[in-house]
């Protein structure tokens, strides 16, 4: 089980990233984290995985506990070793490396050759499409295939908790469905999942529990089914009802911003 309590994050000593976020992921469950752009979703994942340093950010308050180990003073490498894997926002595969090499980078913390082999076989079983692309340069793969490489890479360390940051971003509906199936299967094989998404329908239909982040705070949380049925959430995140067009436009500007920043 992962428990984050009252996490506060500050970037460059002045910019506030999180204003006290608490989150719980019970072993074996899928937790969805929703929120519009700038809500702090990625910041929360960085706080959990020790990646704030690179962004000149730090956790100023709060704690993170994973299966009895305190993560908030550990570096990224130790957190991976503790059993947490992640798929970063924007996939972030190594474009100049081959698919195989990308997968090997994910096994960096694994000592046993046999274990690496086992994880590798498991990844190729989950993503049969990658079998023929093993020696291809990863940067030339399609967006969907790159997302598979990113997920496969994260699974190479056999994490007990997998964090995914907007895996559906920029992918066609059919591919999103495939990715959804993969996440469900990975979870069924015993990995807990935190799924950060803009695609609320997809995330909530997969998840057991959901959190909604706004302005660096959790504004709502509850069983995913309840959130799916909630009127406000339908309006703001699912694009249903009168507010539908507005949130649709939000999504559009968000997409545009994404393209500029990538």
């Amino acid at each position, binding site marked *: 089980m992962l428990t984050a309590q009252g996490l506060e994050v500050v970037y460059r000593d002045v910019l506030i990233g999180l204003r006290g976020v608490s989150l719980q992921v019970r072993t074996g469950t899928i937790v969805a984290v929703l929120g519009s752009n700038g809500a702090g979703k990625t910041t929360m994942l960085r706080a959990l*995985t*020790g*990646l704030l340093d*690179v962004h000149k950010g730090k956790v100023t308050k709060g704690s993170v506990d994973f299966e009895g180990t305190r993560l908030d003073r550990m570096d*990224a*490498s130790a*957190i*991976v*070793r503790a059993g947490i894997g*992640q798929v*970063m926002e924007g996939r*972030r*595969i*190594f*474009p*100049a*490396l081959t698919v195989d*090499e990308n997968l*090997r*980078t*994910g096994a*960096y*913390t694994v000592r046993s050759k046999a274990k690496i082999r086992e994880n590798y076989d498991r990844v190729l079983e989950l993503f049969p499409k990658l079998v023929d692309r093993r020696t291809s340069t990863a940067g030339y793969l399609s967006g969907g295939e790159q997302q598979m490489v990113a997920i496969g*890479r994260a699974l190479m*360390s056999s994490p007990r908790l997998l964090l995914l940051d907007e895996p559906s971003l920029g992918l066609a509906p059919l591919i999103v469905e495939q990715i959804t199936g993969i996440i469900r299967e990975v979870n069924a094989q015993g990995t807990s999942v935190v799924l950060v998404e803009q695609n609320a329908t997809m995330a909530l239909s997969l998840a057991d529990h959901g959190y909604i982040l706004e302005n660096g705070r959790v504004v709502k949380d509850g069983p995913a089914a309840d959130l799916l049925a909630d009127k406000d959430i339908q309006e703001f995140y699912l694009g249903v009802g009168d507010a539908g067009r507005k949130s649709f436009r939000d999504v559009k500007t968000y997409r545009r911003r994404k393209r500029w920043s990538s």
Partner: protein
Amino acid sequence: MTEFLQLMVSGVSLGFTYALVALGFVIIYKATEVINFSQGGLVMIGAYLVYNFTSTWGLPFALSVVLGMLATAGIGLIFERIILRRMVGAPVFAQVMITIGLLFILQNLVTAIWGPDPLNLGDPWGVSTVTFGEVVIQVRQLWGMGLTLFVLLLFFLFFRFTPLGLAMRATAIDQEAALAQGMSSKRVYMAAWGIAGATAALAGVSIASGAASLSPEVQFYALLAFPAIILGGIDSPLGAVIGGLVIGITQSLTAGYIGDIAPWLGAGFESVMPFVVMVLVLLVRPYGLFGTPEIKRV
């Protein structure tokens, strides 16, 4: 024809030496984005350490070369560990200035210990030569080329097959994504400086061996290797090797033929030629032959 082959052999041999020096630059640049101006200093101290092991301590030459490479790798590690590590996040310009400071330290250290006068490295090759047809090759050139090829092969195997080699490549591409896989940037930086030190020592040996002598001048080879790096693409190890060869051959052929073709350019023009070639290549390919067009910063 014989003259041409003769010049080519010298050119390739010289080129391999430049390649070794250039590799050190490139590996540190790729890992840390710092242009290490102390590389020439490492070349120099590496050669002097080998001299110390073999001539002063009387150890066998081969063992002395290995020890010299290890010791210079150690100096690189120390530089990284106690100085540049503290500079991470500082402006790259400041880090580059620090490496210039390190060069001065090495220069003073060498002249303080061994003095400014030329010494004999103490290599077993001396001025002996072998002859293929009519082409005469110095034994030290053959060894220099053989050892460089061997080191390049080790490099290739290291980067391709070891976890640390893979971590170095991944970190150079996307540091944050590499961290997210559990890779340690600190280890990558240290490895880069260690490798740069080891290759520098080997380069120092091949420069100061044979008929040449060991003096603080050895460090200036690093400046001549500079066009090789820029030409090959500053972030490409393969480019460093090809760039080194291009510069070495250019220099050798220019020295050989300039008197016949364009005597008005004057003797010594061969030292200018590498820079001419560099500028010509950059006009066509601004990032060098093998460089990455856009070098991204995290």
